[in-house]
């Protein structure tokens, strides 16, 4: 049961057909993330214009969870403002219980606005895999830090 919830079709689809894959030749911001404990890797290029993420490209290697999470993330942040992206990040982390520890998920179902990403909720039953789902988001945070510093 739990496994079926973890490996939903939409996750396998993003894993096998990652969106926005590649490098962005004229990227403004770049960050790389690594999960030393399992070896998963994720890299992110962002082009930001007037506070809006106009282009995204990702590369990675790793399990279905980390790669699907990255692909979905790329999908959802493209075209959003940096502020909106930060809000999404918060909602995502809330949904995944990341750093929220004992807190229950927001009663307002933050997942609802996350589209495909909501499929990652199944990961919550596999605490060791949460860091897989989080890898692209940690990388995104690094890139956004760069972006904000550049402002």
């Amino acid at each position, binding site marked *: 049961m*739990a*496994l*079926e919830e*973890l*490996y939903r079709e939409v996750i*396998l689809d993003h*894993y*096998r057909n990652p969106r926005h894959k590649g490098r962005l030749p004229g990227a403004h911001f770049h960050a790389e993330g690594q999960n030393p*404990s*399992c*070896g*998963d890797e994720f890299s992110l290029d962002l082009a930001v214009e007037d506070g809006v993420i106009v282009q995204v490209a990702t590369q990675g*290697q*790793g*399990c*279905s*969870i980390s*790669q699907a999470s990255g692909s979905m993330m790329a999908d959802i942040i493209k075209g959003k403002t940096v502020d909106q992206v930060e809000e999404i990040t918060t909602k995502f982390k809330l949904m995944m219980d990341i750093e929220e520890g004992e807190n229950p998920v927001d009663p307002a179902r933050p997942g609802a606005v996350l589209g495909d990403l909501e499929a990652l909720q199944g990961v919550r039953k*596999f605490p060791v*895999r949460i860091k*897989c789902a989080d890898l692209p988001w940690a990388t995104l945070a690094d890139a956004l830090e760069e972006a904000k510093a550049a402002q």
Partner: protein
Amino acid sequence: MNHVRADFPILDRKVNGKRLAYLDSAATTQKPIQVIEAVDDYYRRYNSNVHRGAHTLADEATVAYEGARAKVARFIGAAADELVFTRGTTSSLNMVAYGWGLNRLSPGDRILLTVMEHHANIVPWQLIARHTGAELVYLELTDDYRVDLTNLDRVVDERIKIISMSGMSNVTGAIGSVAELVEVARQIGAVSIVDAAQSVPHLPTDVSTLGADLVAFSAHKMLGPTGIGALWGRREILEEMEPAEGGGEMISDVGLYESKWAPVPHKFEAGTPPIAQAIGFGAAVDYLDKVGMSELRKHEIEITQYALDRLAEVPDLKIVGPQDVAVRGGTVSFELGDVHPHDVATILDQEGVAVRAGHHCAKPLMRYLRVPATARASFYLYTVEEDIDQMVTGLYRARELFGLA
């Protein structure tokens, strides 16, 4: 070998509601009650610091600690005073790198390794190379995952001062080419070192015929406690080596500005040693002696053959390692179609099967093989066919979940 399972309490455990199939012995083995109780008994009955004691408990602890040294030494055909207790293979190799390499290597000298080494047999040499100006040189592999010895003369010359090699790969299970490389070392006067973390636990080992100068291994990979390992060395080499750490117990005299070292092996054992762990290590080799290392090897050959046969049935599964059980141990890495090893491990875990996934602390090897990661099942004397069957069932489940069926 089925009769040993009753000695391992953890094997009765259920994981995710399923029978535990522990296939992660290359990472660390489970412990028989004989080992657990030896440690327990020490703490309950005669816990004391060793060597400097003039009371009964200290004497009992010292006798047990030194007795364990004699047991572990005998297990590999060595004399007790050539056997240094360390914190594990990693510490043993660092001890050699700092104690021998740091003091004797110069710019232009070379250290010969193979690309199938564990990080423990790479990173210390990188550190020493940086300190001394020496260079690292690597031997590559054959298509069958063994060390490629065909063009040795292209790489080997007198600049090589150290040859350090794995006795058995913890990724592919391939047995190292120790005899051949020890002979090369002899010819060019280099020191030969064996990372025996995976070989001493699984292959009968006799250092008196092996020919190597130094051999490093860990207790926790051969039924013993965590926190202890050993470095065996030929006496002359140990005498030439400088101690890596300074402190109590390793000195014969300490002045304000200078000190004199204690004789080998104590020179290398600074501070309070891992006493309980040494005693547990002794109990572990007692256990292995009782089973018999040739019996153990025979069992591992059988179970590995069974595993290779069963895994061959699974569509899209590729073994990363030799197919011939005569040149390999019971550590089997594999890939399953495009299912990431981490996902394989998670799915198997739901079936009660414990395998490891990742780079197995051998990133250079993974890059060389162009495999980002593998799933790895590894066996020991307590592994039975049922464990393998359970894994194969789990692998079919993975295929199903990933739509490969």
